[in-house]
C-alpha cells in the first residue's frame, strides 16, 4: 500500500518495479533536458501543428459535434457508475461466444497471465498491435524475460523498438523523430534493408512492410489491446490505420487481448458515438482506415482461441476519487497532447509515464498514487485547451487542481511555497498589510532595471520560480492606486 491514496484509502495503486508509469526524474528536471533538444522541439512543433489543423477541420464538419461530445461524456459517466455490472456482462458474453476471460489485479498478474497463455501454445514469437495497456504494464519486458521474441508491428512502435527508444505520444509514439532520424534507425537495424533507402515517408513505410510481412504470415500468437469492449454483445473493437492490427487480429491461431476495465461500454449502439468522436479527434480523419470488431471466436474466420485479460492496475483506486475518476473516461485520442503548450515544448518523455501530456498529468499520478508522480499535476499552465478539445469533455484542469490539492495536503513539512502562501494569506486578510506589501513589491523594479521581466538570478527560494518562468516586473502603481487616481474613492 502506498502512503497517500487519492480518495478512499485501501484501494491499491499500480505496483512499483513493473511497467512504465513512473519516470526516473521529476518532470521539471526531465523537461529541462528535453527543452535543450532543439531537433525534438522542431519535430514536435511541426507534427502537432499539422494534426491540430486536421482535427479542427473534420470536427467543424459535424453540425452535432457538441451533442456527440456530451453523449460521449454521459455514456462514460453512466458506465463507470455501474462498472461492475458491465464487466460481469462482458465476461458472460465473451464466454458465451467462445472466448476466455481472465482478471488481473495489477501489472504483474496481467504479465504472468499473458506469459502463461503464450507459453501454453508452444510459440516462441509474439506479434503485437500497439496498445497503451500493454505498454503501461511492461508486457514486452515480461515476455522477453520469459525467453519469447516480441515484435511490435505498428510503424511508430517499430521505430521506437528498433531505436531502443521510448514512446513519446499516445497515438504516434515516434512523433519526436523526423524522417531523417527514422531512416537512420531503419538503415542501422533492419537486416537486409535496401542501402539506397531514402527518407521519403513512403519508402520508409514500405521498408517496414517488407520487414514485418514474413512475421505476420508465420505468427501463431498475437497480443492486442482494445479501444472498446461491448458488454451487451461481448464485441471487442480495435481502431487502427495500417492493417497491422488486422494482421494480428486475423491470422494467428491465438489472440490475447489486454483491456483496461474502464474500456467497457454498455451497448453496441454506444459505438455510434465513439466511432464518430475518436477518429476525428485522434488522426483528424473522418474515419480511420480500419476498425475491427469481433465477438469471441468465429469458426473458419480468425483466431480459434481468444483470451480477454481485464486489467485493474490502479484503475479502481482512480474510480474511488469522485473528482479524479473522470480520467477513466479517456478514449486515448491524444487530442489533448496535440494542443498542449507544455507537451509541445517538452515532448512526451519528460512525463516519465507511457501516458504523457494533459491526460498523463491526471492519469499517471492517480494510477500510481500521487507521491510517485508528484510533479505531474504541476506540468500544466491550466490554460484549458485540453478540456476544449477532449471528445468526452474531461475537465482536465479541474482534476489537475484537485491533484495539486491532494499533493499539498499530503506534505507534512512546510515548503517555501506553502510558507509564501501563508504569508500571502495573512497579508490579504489585512488591508493595511496588503497595501504595504504591494508597495514594497515595487522594489522589484530596481532589480529589473527597466526590463519587462525580472532577471533570472533571484536568490533561492525565488529562483525556483524564475528558473523556468518569466516574472513580470512589478508595475509603478497598484490597481487600487490607479483606480483611486482615475475614479476617486
Amino acid at each position, binding site marked *: 500500500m502506498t502512503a497517500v491514496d487519492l480518495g478512499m484509502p485501501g484501494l491499491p495503486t499500480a505496483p512499483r518495479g513493473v511497467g512504465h508509469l513512473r519516470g526516473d526524474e521529476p518532470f521539471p528536471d526531465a523537461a529541462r533536458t528535453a527543452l535543450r533538444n532543439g531537433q525534438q522541439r522542431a519535430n514536435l512543433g511541426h507534427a502537432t501543428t499539422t494534426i491540430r489543423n486536421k482535427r479542427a477541420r473534420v470536427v467543424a464538419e459535424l453540425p452535432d459535434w457538441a*451533442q456527440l461530445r456530451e453523449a460521449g461524456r454521459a455514456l462514460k459517466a453512466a458506465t463507470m457508475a455501474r462498472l461492475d455490472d458491465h464487466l460481469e456482462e462482458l465476461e458472460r458474453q465473451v464466454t458465451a461466444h467462445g472466448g476466455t476471460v481472465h482478471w488481473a489485479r495489477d501489472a504483474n498478474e496481467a504479465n504472468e497471465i499473458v506469459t502463461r497463455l503464450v507459453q501454453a501454445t508452444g510459440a516462441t514469437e509474439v506479434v503485437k498491435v500497439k496498445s497503451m495497456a500493454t505498454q503501461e504494464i511492461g508486457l514486452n519486458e515480461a515476455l522477453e524475460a520469459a525467453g519469447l521474441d516480441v515484435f511490435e508491428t505498428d510503424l511508430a512502435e517499430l521505430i521506437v523498438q528498433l531505436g531502443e527508444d521510448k514512446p513519446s505520444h499516445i497515438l504516434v509514439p515516434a512523433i519526436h523523430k523526423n524522417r531523417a532520424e527514422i531512416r537512420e534507425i531503419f538503415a542501422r537495424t533492419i537486416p537486409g534493408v535496401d542501402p539506397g533507402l531514402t527518407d521519403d515517408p513512403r519508402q520508409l513505410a514500405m521498408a517496414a512492410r517488407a520487414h514485418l510481412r514474413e512475421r505476420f504470415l508465420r505468427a501463431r500468437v498475437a497480443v492486442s489491446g482494445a479501444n472498446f469492449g461491448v458488454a451487451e454483445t461481448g464485441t471487442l473493437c480495435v481502431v487502427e490505420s495500417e492493417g497491422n492490427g*488486422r*494482421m494480428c487480429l486475423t491470422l494467428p491461431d491465438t489472440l490475447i487481448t489486454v483491456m483496461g*476495465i474502464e474500456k467497457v461500454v454498455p451497448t453496441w449502439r454506444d459505438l455510434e458515438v465513439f466511432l464518430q468522436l475518436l477518429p476525428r479527434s485522434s488522426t483528424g480523419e473522418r474515419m480511420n482506415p480500419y476498425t475491427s470488431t*469481433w465477438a469471441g471466436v468465429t469458426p473458419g474466420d480468425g483466431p480459434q482461441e481468444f483470451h480477454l485479460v481485464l486489467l485493474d492496475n490502479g484503475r479502481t483506486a482512480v474510480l474511488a476519487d469522485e473528482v479524479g475518476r473522470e480520467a477513466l473516461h479517456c478514449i486515448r485520442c491524444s487530442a489533448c497532447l496535440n494542443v498542449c503548450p507544455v507537451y509541445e515544448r517538452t515532448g512526451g518523455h519528460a512525463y516519465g509515464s507511457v501516458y504523457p501530456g494533459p491526460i498523463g498529468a491526471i492519469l499517471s499520478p492517480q494510477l500510481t498514487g500521487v507521491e510517485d508522480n508528484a510533479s505531474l499535476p504541476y506540468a500544466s499552465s491550466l490554460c484549458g485547451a485540453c478540456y476544449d478539445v477532449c471528445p468526452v469533455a474531461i475537465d482536465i484542469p479541474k482534476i489537475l487542481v484537485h491533484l495539486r490539492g491532494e499533493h499539498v495536503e499530503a506534505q507534512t513539512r512546510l515548503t517555501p511555497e506553502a510558507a509564501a502562501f501563508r504569508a500571502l494569506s495573512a497579508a490579504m486578510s489585512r488591508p493595511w498589510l496588503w497595501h504595504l506589501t504591494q508597495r514594497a513589491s515595487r522594489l522589484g523594479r530596481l532589480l529589473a532595471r527597466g526590463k519587462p521581466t525580472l532577471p533570472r538570478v533571484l536568490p533561492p527560494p525565488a529562483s525556483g520560480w524564475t528558473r523556468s518562468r518569466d516574472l513580470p516586473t512589478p508595475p509603478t502603481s497598484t490597481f487600487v492606486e490607479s483606480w483611486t487616481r482615475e475614479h476617486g474613492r
Partner: protein
Amino acid sequence: MSAREDVLGRIRQALGPDRTTPAEVVRDYRLTDGRPPGDPALLDLLVDRVEDYRATVLRCAPEEIGATVAAALDQGLGAGWATRDVVVAPGLPAEWRPTGSDVDDDRPPVQLAARSAAVTAVAVAIAETGTLVLDGSPACGRRALSLLPDCLVCVVLADQVAGSVPEALARLDPLRPLTMVSGPSATSDIELQRVEGVHGPRTLLVVLVG
C-alpha cells in the same frame, strides 16, 4: 479470493454503498442523415469521401457489374492480369466474378497472400465517412481475404449506402466479425503525413452500382 472477486469488490468499494444513479444518456445528435439509404445524393457523397482517401470509385448500372469489376482489376493490376491471381469471396454472385478466378475456400489463410487481388461484396457503406463495412458473410468473405491480397475490389449496391455512422451500425450484426474499411491502409506515423499502403491492401477500388 480470486482476482475476479477482488477486482469486482474493489469497484464496489470505490463506488461506495450509495452510488449515484446516472442520468439517462441524451442522444440528441443526428441519428439519421435524413436521406434514405441509396439516395442519389448519398451515393455522390460516398464517392467524394472515398476518393478523398485516394481510393478509386467506378460507377455502373446493375447489369454492368461483371464488366466493371474487370475494369477495376485492369486499373488495380494493370492490363493483362491473370484471372487465377484474383481470388473472390465464396458467396460473390457468379456474374460479378471474372471468369476463371479463384474462389476462396477453407485453405490456410496465409495462402491468400499469394494472390494479387481480391473481390468482395460489402454489408453496408457509410456515405459521410467514406467507409465500407464487411461482415464475414459468404459474399464479403472471411477477414483474411480482404486483407492479404495487395489490391481489393469491393462491390457496393446503392441500397447498402447509409448516410451516417448510427444508421450503419444499426444495420450490422455485432456478433459477426466486422471490418470497417475507409480507404487503403495508411500510416501517419512519420511526421504525421499520411502515406497510403502499409500492411493492408495498398490499392482500394470501389465498384458502386447505381
